[in-house]
């Protein structure tokens, strides 16, 4: 009986009820441990650049414009929201928020930029010297990421001349 079977089908459909979530009209809660967009707190940040060193997507750029001002720029284009930056941050200045509604029509909307004062040695006015050669290679006093082109540069002796720190500002990019 086709009519009967149709009626049966209707009954089953009615019993199932409505499952569609009223999403854009009504906010949808996210799970407790959901990692959304990382938010940077400029008050807590000490500018150690641990997040920049640890980011697998290299999305955090660090530029020292002079000895005392460091610019930290989070681009957010290819951020995978892995939360490693928040994990490594010693001051807990990065929090993984629950924001996921990040759709935009220009990719520059996602970026966050911090301008920080770096403290130096109060006696000599310079930064501290690194203990070993390997440390020096890793933590050269000034860092050069390319803010204009928003790209990350390998920090190595191949790029950076060893002698005066001021000369490092004039390196040629490819």
């Amino acid at each position, binding site marked *: 009986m086709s009519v009967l079977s149709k009626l049966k089908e209707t009954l089953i459909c009615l019993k199932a009820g409505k*499952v*569609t*979530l009223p*999403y*854009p009209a009504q906010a*949808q809660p*996210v799970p407790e441990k959901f990692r959304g967009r990382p938010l*940077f707190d*400029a008050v807590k940040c000490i500018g150690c650049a641990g997040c920049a060193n640890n980011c*697998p*997507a*290299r*999305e955090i750029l660090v530029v020292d414009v002079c000895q*005392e001002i460091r610019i930290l720029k989070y*681009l*957010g*284009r*290819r*951020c*995978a*929201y*892995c939360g490693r930056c928040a994990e490594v941050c010693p001051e807990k200045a990065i929090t993984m928020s629950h*924001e*996921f*509604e*990040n*759709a*935009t*029509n*220009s*990719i*520059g*909307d*996602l*970026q*966050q*930029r*911090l*301008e*920080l*004062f770096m*403290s130096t040695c*109060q006696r000599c006015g310079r930064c501290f010297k690194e203990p070993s050669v390997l440390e020096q290679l890793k933590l050269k006093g000034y860092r050069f990421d390319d803010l204009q082109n928003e790209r990350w540069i390998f920090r190595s002796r191949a790029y950076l001349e060893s002698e005066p720190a001021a000369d490092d500002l004039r390196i040629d990019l490819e």
Partner: protein
Amino acid sequence: MLANLCQRMFKRSLWVYHANSGGCNGCDIEVLNVLTPYYDAERFGIKLVGSPRHADVMLCQGPAMRATAKALRRAYEAMPSPKLVFAIGSCACGGGIWFDTYSVLGPVEKVIPVNYYIPGCPPRPEAIIYGVAVAVGLVDKKTVPVQFKQLELPIPRYHPNQLRGEGDLVVYEKMEKV
């Protein structure tokens, strides 16, 4: 201007074409999740079609790879205009984690012009619906670039001339901030 154009041109149903140019299938699964009854996208008239010639919107997933860049470009050119391109996921927005390997060219905007970006790895189905809702003008976008600036050095500066002995204690005078 783009939003106005979208509202005028895409008043009725959006037919989407789903192009994966070398992603990991995470974003594909989320896009298919949008079409399930839970996040019923067909109530906005969104329908998945199999050919770029039928489509108004292209959903790009995965970075532009060396092997698939040409095919992606051809699929884009096969779409009738006006057309919209969504970059879904971190790979399509910025190149993904493997942005600097030899086979990855970079974000899809290196190959085709992108109108809307939905970051996330993968983005939640809600985030994809939100992106489409931003495009058709149902909601406003929330993200704005953020800029912080420290105006005062948080550490006080001491000078030996400003030391003053007071019994057992040494007192600093004029703790000025730099």
